[in-house]
């Protein structure tokens, strides 16, 4: 019995240690608040994002069907998860740890807040606090991102501007990231840059990134701190890539391709051989007929004679 108590104690201690060791969120980050109020539409959008990005490990909220990992991914509806402040959840989503990936570059912070709004929908006691509007965003509206490409330097330039004091002004000191759209995700180009006094950020574009057949690449520039700027981003298609046309992989005639793409020599050899052999066979069959006919005549001959 004693042993059992001891082991139980040990387990409690270990789990305590584990949770105690877990993920310390800096106070500054933990206090962060969502820039917008959670609503049905944010929860709905958050649910979709959760399905595609989180469910495979965390399972369905409230169903405790997370997969077994070490440490175990907490159920979003659990007290453990809900015990986090909004800012702490946001920090964890952005930074990631161990098996938990960082979603910094893959999901925009607006979308991350939407995921948090979805997670909070499983907590009845939750009351949201919204960040006070402040900083540039407080004054800036209609943030615009303009992307251009300079062929000589092979650089993409992003110019950020916004309505400020009723006129359009460049935004300086904002962090911008440039992505190239690929089929399954966005490829970070160069690295995050801060805008200069003219609101410009310049990215070195790789010389060998494949574009479509005319070299067009869909680019997307995003302001990193979209809590401050709202969802400011620009999607532009520019001819910055290497014109790429790769023929369909099943285009050429080959042994492994479909019957319509049989190698010509094989097709001819097959048809020729089969025809040759079978024409002889038919010839032999005709000979049997000839024997039969010869028999009729001969019989008649014998009758006549």
């Amino acid at each position, binding site marked *: 019995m004693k042993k059992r108590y001891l082991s139980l104690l040990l387990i409690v201690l270990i789990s305590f240690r584990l949770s105690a060791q877990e993920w310390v969120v800096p106070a500054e980050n933990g206090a962060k608040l969502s820039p917008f109020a959670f609503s049905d539409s944010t929860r709905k959008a958050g649910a979709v994002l959760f399905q595609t990005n989180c469910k495979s490990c965390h399972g369905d909220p409230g169903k405790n069907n997370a997969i077994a990992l070490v440490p175990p991914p907490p159920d979003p509806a659990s007290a453990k998860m809900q015990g986090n402040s909004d800012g702490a959840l946001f920090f964890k989503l952005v930074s990631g740890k161990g098996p938990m990936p960082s979603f910094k570059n893959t999901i925009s912070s607006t979308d991350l807040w939407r995921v948090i709004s979805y997670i909070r929908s499983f907590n009845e006691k939750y009351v949201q606090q919204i960040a006070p509007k402040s900083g540039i965003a407080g004054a800036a509206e209609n943030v615009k991102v303009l992307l251009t490409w300079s062929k000589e330097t092979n650089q993409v330039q992003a110019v950020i501007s916004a309505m400020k004091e009723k006129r359009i002004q460049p935004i300086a000191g904002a962090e911008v990231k440039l992505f190239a759209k690929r089929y399954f995700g966005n490829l970070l180009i160069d690295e995050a840059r801060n805008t200069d006094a003219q609101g410009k950020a310049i990215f070195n574009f790789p010389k060998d990134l494949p574009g479509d057949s005319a070299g067009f690449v869909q680019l997307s520039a995003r302001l990193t701190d979209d809590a401050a700027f709202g969802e400011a981003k620009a999607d532009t298609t520019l001819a910055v890539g290497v014109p790429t046309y790769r023929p369909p992989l099943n285009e050429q005639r080959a042994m492994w391709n479909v*019957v319509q793409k049989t190698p010509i020599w094989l097709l001819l050899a*097959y048809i020729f051989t089969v025809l040759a*052999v079978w024409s*002889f066979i038919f010839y032999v069959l005709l000979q*049997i007929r000839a*024997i*039969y006919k*010869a*028999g009729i005549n001969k019989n008649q001959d014998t009758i006549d004679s």
Partner: protein
Amino acid sequence: MSSEVNTDFLHDKRLDAIAADLLRPVGISKGFLIWMGFLTISLMGCIYAYYIQWDKGLIVTGLRDYVSWGMYIANFIFFVATSLVGMLISSVLGLIGFKWVKPIARIAEIIAVAFAAVAGLVIVSDMGRPERLPYVFMYGRIQSPILWDVTVVTTYMVLSALLYFIPLIPDLAISKGRMGHQPKWLQATYEFLSVNWNHSSYQYKILLKAVRILLILIIPTAFAIHTVTSWLLAVTLRPGWDSSIFGPYFLTGAFVAGSAAVVIMMYFVRTNYKLDKYLTVYHFDMMGKLLVLVSIVYLYFNINEFLVPAYKLKTADAIHLHELFVGEHAMLFWSVQLLGLILPIILLLFKFFRKPFPMLVISIVVLVAAWFKRYIIVVPTQENPFLPKQFVPHAWMVYQPTVIETAITMGTILLAVIIITILFKLFPVIPIWEMAEEECSGEKDKHQE
């Protein structure tokens, strides 16, 4: 086959004697009915086994994802192999001009027809979706060796059937008037199949021409049929199959199996039909020599097939050869090689063992070994794939044939025996007109006893 037929024998009394001898076994006898009844009932059991497989799927066999070809494919190769002898005896030896093959040629053709016909069914027994067989013709891919195989097996079967039937025509005509005691339907069949044959020299000329075309045509076809069958294995990348000599290796092996089958049938005809006057000790002696010859050629290819990779011992080959030489399949491998190949070569060098009865025993051993040889070619290769076999039930890693599988395989063999029995009993097994022609034209070989 000579280019002209001397039709003098038609008016010779000796024809009557020969025809009487050779037609004696023809017809529905009590023994035939009992034997056929036994075969049919046994076959019913096997068909029931196939019904179970049809219903439950191939799960009832010992086949699984790793060893997905087993007894059925081995059996298929065996059938194709055995059927090849028709080409060897009547065509190659006949065209060269060996007279002693004349009474044996039809036996060889019967084996060819029966085994080629059943080979098609054997391959169906291996299919997961047998009802989709027509797809092979509807959507056939010319690049697939299976399509080539279907094409050549069909062609070979037709050629063999013609080569059986056309030289039979004069016999049917000769027999017509000599089988009053036979049932009406059999006489009608003879009448119908004899296509107005009246022994005119014109008809003989056409017949010889047709047969000559067939004899030449069947040589490349027969080579193709077994080479293509060997390619079913050789076109893959697997150790043990990935071999460039698989074509000739299979072909020569086929001659061994086929010759053995012919000897067994010869012995049966000689003793059961009391035709020892036509299938003499001399014929067995010659067949014995033929068997030694083809066995030695086959041995040569065996040495090539095993010695060369065993010398280099590439990783995958080494594992495969280890299994064969000293591993799990060593017992079977060495039995097959020694009993089915080495021992017959040594024994048949002595005249005593080329006598009918010793020949029968040796041939049975050779034929059984030939079947297991195909098994040894098909199964062990798949038990040693390139990547490890893991996280599957134990039964998936090794191949253990089941009762149902064995029964279905037995069924195909029974079916071949049924076809052979019917052809043996309904039509003369030894060509009457060729025997008579030889006898009467005084060309009969002196050494016949």
